[in-house]
């Protein structure tokens, strides 16, 4: 895998090569060269299998990290290509022409992270969340608890209990103090 990185270095602005274990490695490339690198890996290096394509939200750095996981059936190597893109107005070049299932991953990323892939077929269609009007839910700032409380408000007469306090009341009804009986 190191040899692959050395072959790629003169051709592309790849960096941060990291070998995770025997046949799995990661490298990073700037956004503008990513599509070219992936095309090169598929056509000239044997990485013919797009294993998956996803994103990780690094909200503290203001970036989404895209991960293109590629596999070479010949050498049995798997390579994760990292591409950092800005969170604000996130867009990325589409790779739907390279693999048939890429458009589906891109459609999911648009819905779940709000990353746009202009030109990707059906990218604006709802995938799983029909009629969703909140921020994309896989973003780190999406608060699932607040959403649930707002959307699925308690029915009249329904009592909500905090598990620790509830058990305290059930097991030690006469005990005074806080949830731990004030002994802590």
């Amino acid at each position: 895998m190191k040899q692959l990185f050395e072959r790629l270095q003169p051709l592309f602005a790849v960096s941060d090569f990291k070998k995770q274990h025997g046949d799995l490695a990661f490298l990073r490339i700037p956004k503008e060269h990513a599509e070219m690198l992936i095309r090169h890996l598929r056509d000239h290096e044997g990485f013919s299998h797009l294993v998956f394509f996803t994103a990780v939200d690094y909200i503290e750095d203001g970036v989404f990290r895209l991960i293109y996981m590629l596999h070479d059936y010949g050498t049995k190597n798997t390579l994760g290509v990292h591409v950092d893109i800005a969170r604000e107005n996130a867009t990325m070049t589409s790779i739907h022409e390279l693999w048939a299932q890429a458009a589906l991953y891109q459609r999911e990323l648009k819905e779940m992270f709000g990353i746009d892939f202009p030109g990707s077929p059906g990218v604006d269609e709802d995938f799983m969340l029909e009629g969703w009007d909140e921020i994309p839910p896989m973003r780190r700032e999406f608060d699932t608890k607040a959403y649930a409380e707002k959307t699925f408000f308690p029915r009249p007469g329904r009592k909500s209990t905090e598990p620790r306090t509830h058990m305290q009341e059930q097991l030690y009804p006469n005990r005074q103090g806080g949830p731990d009986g004030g002994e802590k």
Partner: protein
Amino acid sequence: MFAPDRSKYPEIVDGKPVVDLDSEKYVKIWHGPQHPGITGNMSLELTLCGDEVVECKTHVGYLHRGFEKLMERRTWIQNFPVVCRIAVPEPAFNEYLYAAGLEELAGIQPPERAQWIRNLNLEMMRLASFMAWLGGQAGAFGMGTIGQWTITHRDYLLDLFEEMTGGRIYHMYMIPGGVRAGLPDGFEARLEAVLQKCEKLLEEIELVLLNNAVFKSRAVGLGYIDKEMIDRYGITGPNQRACGIKRDLRKDAPYLVYDQLDFEVITGTASDAYERTVVRYHEMHQCIDLIRQILARMPNDGPFHHPLPNVLHWRIPPGETYVKAECTRGEKGYYIVSDGSQYPRRICIRGPSYTHAFPVMEKLAIGTDIADIAGLMVSLHTYPPEIER
């Protein structure tokens, strides 16, 4: 590549067929989400011209529970009851992959006996999952009785899982560092008795299904997958092997103790629904053989679990990894990112159904008779929960 005659299909503009439903030439129907011929809670939006499908669109979202998001808000160990729910008929693969990913990131090496027990559990799971699929495949072509037989035999296997793990469907048995318990006393003999029942069933299945004239006439030639489609569509598992490509992660990237077991990758040639059935049928025999090999060779004593730190405050060192295994449908993988905290930063699950149920199904459905859609879909062996993780 297979190129159907498009003269009787609608015109395609910008990659989409133009279907004028007012022309009375087409009719649009929904196949699912409540339909016995659909593989779980998903639906196909079919556009028909007579009995022939001219357009197929897969819809999911009926059971989206946001597993990947849920896992980001739970501690590493709290995620164990979550991961097994991502593929209902075969949760063990999720348990194993999640555990293996954490072990790799945390630098834990499970004891050898645990690896053998895990392998046994996975092969039993594969056999149980194939049983459920086989009933579905036969049922989709109108042979519901076979479904009764296979579900009964799956239940015999579930009884064994209950003995082994305490749970019939969701086991939560493979945890980081090993497994929760060893095998119960006399388990091997009871497993062997069930394997013999399964073998007898498979003999009957060969007679009533694989040699059945109705099944053959409907499944042969149905859903042909061209070799060129394999990499372009990311097809894996028996769907791939049925067209003659010899790829199996158990051989190509051996995990657990597969490198110590003796087996060959099963392939076919015709690459249609019938061939996929035959490949899976032989893989069921292979499962039985592998289980027997494991029982004969596995160590009967020794530790089955590596001690862990306090899992309630467990922090996994920062890093990322991708672990994969060959499940019944193909390559299943977990991509796990840790930022050093008590919670996962990101977990992405790669399920083979993602591509099989969407681009592959949408392509293969075109030109298929409406009556064969259920059989085609089951022959691709898709599970919606791993699409909607």
